[in-house]
């Protein structure tokens, strides 16, 4: 089954979209002075990489990876989307949640101690 031009275009668009989103989020991490903005950029980077993982496991002309009856085994093997990247992404999302929560707590603690979330001000206050 060959891909039509429009399908190829859409798949390529998705891939480049993900890469550009990742690049923009890295810009946000590096260039934004606010800790909140940095954390938001980090979650965007995480999400774009997660979607990239799903994209790698994706197959065109596919069916969902669920085995209804053993009769359909051949069709399942031939057509189903690879479920493993999805399982990996699920794990990564949970870990990302924990790390993000911890970072948000630390940002709150930084705000309590310094009275600001601006990294430039924090550097000045530290002296």
């Amino acid at each position, binding site marked *: 089954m060959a891909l039509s031009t429009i399908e190829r275009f859409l*798949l390529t668009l998705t*891939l480049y979209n993900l890469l550009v989103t990742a690049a923009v989020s890295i810009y946000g*991490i590096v260039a934004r002075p606010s*800790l909140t903005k*940095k*954390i938001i950029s*980090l979650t965007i*980077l*995480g999400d774009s*990489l997660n979607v*990239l*993982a799903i994209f*790698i*496991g994706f197959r065109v002309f596919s069916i969902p990876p669920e085995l209804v009856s053993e009769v359909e085994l051949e069709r399942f093997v031939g057509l189903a989307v*690879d479920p*493993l*990247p999805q399982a*990996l992404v699920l*794990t*990564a999302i949970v*870990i*990302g949640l*924990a*790390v*993000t929560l*911890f*970072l948000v707590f*630390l*940002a709150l*603690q*930084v705000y309590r*101690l*310094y009275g600001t979330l601006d990294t430039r001000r*924090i550097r000045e206050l*530290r002296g």
Partner: protein
Amino acid sequence: MHAVAVAPALLVAVAFTLPLLSLKVRRAKLFHGVTLATTSAVLVLTVYNYAYVSSSGRPLVYRMGGWPPPLGIVYEVDPLSALLAAYTALVLVAVVAYSSWYLGEDSGLPYYYALLLGLEAGLIGIYYTGDVFNLFVMIEVLGITCYGLVAYYRSTKEAVEASFKYAFFGAIAGLLYFLAAVLIYASFGNLTMGFVAAFSRPTYRLIYWNVASTLIWGNITAATGAVLALSLWTFTFKAGVFPNHFWLPDAHPAAPTPISAVLSGLVVNAGAYAAVRFLYTVFGVFDPLSEFYELSGYVKAVLMAVGAVSALFASVMMVVQTDVKRLIAYSTIMHLGLVFTGFSLGTPEGVGASVYHMLTHAAGKALLFMSAGVAIEVSRTRRIAELRGVGRVYKLVGLSTLLSCLSLVGLPPLAGFFSKLVLYQAYVQSGHFELIAVLLTSSAIALLGYFKVLYPIVLGQPPVGSEVARLRGFGLAAALLIPLVLIVVLNPPVVGGILEQVSRAVTDPGKYIDEALNSFINYVSRLYLTSGG
């Protein structure tokens, strides 16, 4: 065989029980006791595993939930991972004993120990795992416990800021490794290290295998290059080596002293171990039989540059520090730089020497942090100029400061000398004379730094009466580590055989691959027989 899986599971179970226990019981002694008992039990288990692996001469494979390797997650323990895990467990027993003195009746004790046990579970998980994605999970387990422990004094500016920096860049490093794991899956079709290693070596290619998704990753060597670049970023971050060292001099001093000892002595080793596992076992970059041998030139250049620059840079930074814990933290960067130069050689001698240096550095660094911690506690400051001469009152502290400093410098009768000597011989054998200059220069510069610590603690003004605290945990910690530095690790005849076995297992991963493949074949054949086929 099941002892492999018990250690991390036991640690995690106790780690989650401690905070629950604190709802009912408030006695500090209970938490000290439970943690010490748990870490001792883990020490017994890991030593048993090491004895089993080294005597049988074959890696141990443990299948999680009974699923065979390419489908399920496996733990695969070879001599290198077994050795490092047992050593980690040993140093952690000393650290827990020291913690019982350092933290005493602190109200956060259950949480502190929960995180410390989680950290040990993460470390042992990293060493034992035979699965690329499980390594990611374990790196994150190790990461989040470390961030938590660095931020233990959460009302101090220094700790919160250091922990934020560490956690934020740690999260990015974790994401990059996740991407690398996904790329490995896309290119090799599985995540088991033994199977990826088999696919990397044409001699092992039993079945025809093609690139899973030709849409994106057509070229397997290019994909592997990307995987190595991404994962080495993460591993050098964990190891605190030059371009990714920036968090270390903030995070290590900000943590409570026992945690500084763990971070500097043990956690950085996990990064170096993971780099070796990937470069040597999984992709066989330095193995002429491997598909990716053509990458060896780049990898060698990168590792060598990274190691040499961090050794030289950190030794200079050491000398200019005024904070004792920061100084010791920079010394960690220097030693890990030397370890990476050893790994860059690609020879069994280089690997053996680097592993040896990792071991002597871990013991020396943990002991130095612990004894400097006593001086900091007594003099209530971290400024080197104001440190009290604790060594005059507590002979044990003075002795352990002296021994750990001299071992880290590399003076002849001590362990650090032999590991540097072996490293030197490895450089000579592979003809890298410029690295000898790096080793000697960085050691000579660092000598000044170590004497800045050594002098006030051993010969400085003795503390006055009221500043003297009781030292119980320190005794046990020092009693464990001093002989370790002096006798066990010291002796090349003792460790020589161990290191030879380790470096052979690393540079020739044939057995590692065979065990993973056998595990799969055994499972399938048993399935075939029981189904009456």
